[in-house]
């Protein structure tokens, strides 16, 4: 009836290493399969495109720079619109949380109306319908206004939820320390609410990058507008639209990486010693 021998111990410590090794190999296999799936789908698409059209390199060298020139415009429209949306959402959320029936009424009407009608209709309305009332705005500001107001309505609800997600104990602690309503909101609730909604703002910005293509309908020369303009006359829309799609896709991936970096940095204050 001997106990555990030293030989047993040796095999057992080896067992741990062997399990670790097997797990590592399993993870590697999974990752390889995952990448392979992507490659197969991409190759299939490329094959389909090349089988359908003749690759016109002369046209591409002309059209790609033309489409790429829309990138700064797309980014500008997106940034301007998201900024406007954040301001509106802030006001909207304050209104929705207000005990004042007038403020609350205005804010909820705004949210209901802009969420209840299509974004494309709102863009066209500002651009095509308002001139009938004698209000004429340029295409670029029109696009920014429409996108900003529409996203602001959605973000109002996000901001409201973010503010409400700050535990009531925080407000109580602030009040108990003699802070008034305004100081409490500005110093205690808002910074925490902002942290809560940061990922949502990032997601909305990435969605905005793509929804900004809707302003191509009113002639803002962003990516999609340019892709259509250069592709249509020569019936080469497949090439130009694919280029535009690639540009949007790459932009989305880049901003997603940026977003997760930003979030990680913001979370630092929560958990670790500030460096």
């Amino acid at each position, binding site marked *: 009836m001997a106990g555990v021998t030293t030989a047993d111990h040796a095999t057992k410590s080896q067992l741990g290493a062997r399990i670790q090794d097997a797990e590592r190999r399993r993870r590697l296999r999974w990752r390889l399969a995952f990448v392979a799936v992507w490659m197969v789908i991409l190759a299939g698409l490329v094959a389909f495109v090349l089988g359908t059209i003749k690759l016109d390199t002369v046209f591409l060298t002309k059209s790609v720079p033309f489409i790429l020139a829309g990138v700064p415009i797309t980014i500008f429209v997106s940034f301007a619109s998201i900024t406007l949306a954040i301001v509106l959402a802030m006001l909207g959320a304050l209104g929705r949380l207000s005990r004042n029936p007038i403020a609350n009424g205005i804010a909820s009407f705004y949210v209901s109306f802009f969420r209840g009608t299509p974004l494309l209709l709102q863009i066209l309305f500002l651009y095509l319908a308002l001139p009938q009332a004698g209000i004429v705005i340029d295409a670029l500001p029109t696009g920014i206004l429409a996108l900003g107001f529409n996203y602001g309505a959605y973000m109002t609800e996000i901001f409201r939820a973010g503010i409400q997600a700050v535990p009531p104990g925080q407000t*109580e602690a602030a009040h*108990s*320390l003699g802070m008034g*309503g305004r*100081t409490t909101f500005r110093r205690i609730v808002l910074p*925490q609410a902002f*942290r809560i909604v940061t990922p949502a703002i990032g997601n909305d910005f990435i969605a905005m990058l793509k929804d900004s293509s809707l302003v191509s309908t009113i002639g803002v020369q962003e990516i999609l507008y340019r892709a259509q303009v250069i592709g249509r006359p020569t019936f080469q829309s497949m090439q130009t639209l694919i280029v535009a799609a690639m540009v949007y896709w790459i932009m989305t991936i880049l901003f997603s990486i940026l977003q997760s970096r930003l979030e990680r940095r913001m979370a630092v*204050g*929560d958990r670790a010693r*500030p460096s």
Partner: protein
Amino acid sequence: MTTIAPGRPAHVIDPAEVPGSLVPTGAKPIVRASSIEKFFGDNHVLRGCSMTVYPRETITILGRSGSGKSTFLRCLNYLEAPSAGAVDIDGVEVDAAPMRRRARAERERIRRLRLSATMVFQEFNLFPHLSVIGNLIEAPVHVKGMSKAAASELGERYLAKVGLSDKRDEYPNRLSGGQRQRVAIARALTMEPKVLLFDEPTSALDPSLVGEVLKVMEELAHEGRTMIVVTHEMQFAREAADRVYYIDQGQFVEIGPPEQVIEHPRDERTRSFLSRFLGSAHVHQGAGGAPVVHMPERMVESHHHEDPGEEHPHAEDAHVTHADGHHGHAHDAEGDHPHP
């Protein structure tokens, strides 16, 4: 018999509510809560609770969960708005006004009331987005308008007092529960309030961390800070409190020094509550259903610990009547009120 008159209720000092030995004779009360009532919907949570606290006293409120003890404490600095009654802390008086929205000036008065009575919460409620020192200087800087340097110095002093100087730049999420609560106490102290309110400060803590928080609280009590503590820590109540209020179903049913309320409870409800903690129930018949008031020792001529039945001849006469379930004032049979 005091009834709840519309408007400001008269504040009646129970004969039991005379200050403990720390308080100089003739001292004015610093907290006066008069006939506090609280309804949550049609749930009548507080039924005419009055309390008088003198400077440097430590008061402990005991009671079962759901008895209204936390609600009463929260009414004291209007985190919970009373449905009726009035609170006066250090000369700032606020009446209950459940029916209307308060005007700006009145809300400002509530804010000033809170400046004199800072709460320490069960769940700490530290500000997670601020470092420890950030938590401590937030209110001094943004409420009192202190400079950051002066506030930091103040904050560091109180941080040292709770023994956490080395956590100055840490964030709350990195601290243990006991450390968090000590930071919360230091944060309350930086506002230098007249009264510290503690709402079950150790109930959310791991049992092994309770001691460090109680130690800080005991130190504060012994250095003469005015404190009102809602707690289940019988040991703290016995050793640090000058007076104990026992609350049952929204009424204070027994008030007095801890050695009397805790060790010789007279009220049936107090006895059955305390028997859980003390192991043996005191089997002596008190004043039936009427609230019991213990006279402080120096008021009682003949004091016999040996015979609990005959212990406080005055107290029997000085019971508080709650005939209609509302606030009543005490009949002081001898008329030897210590603070006329």
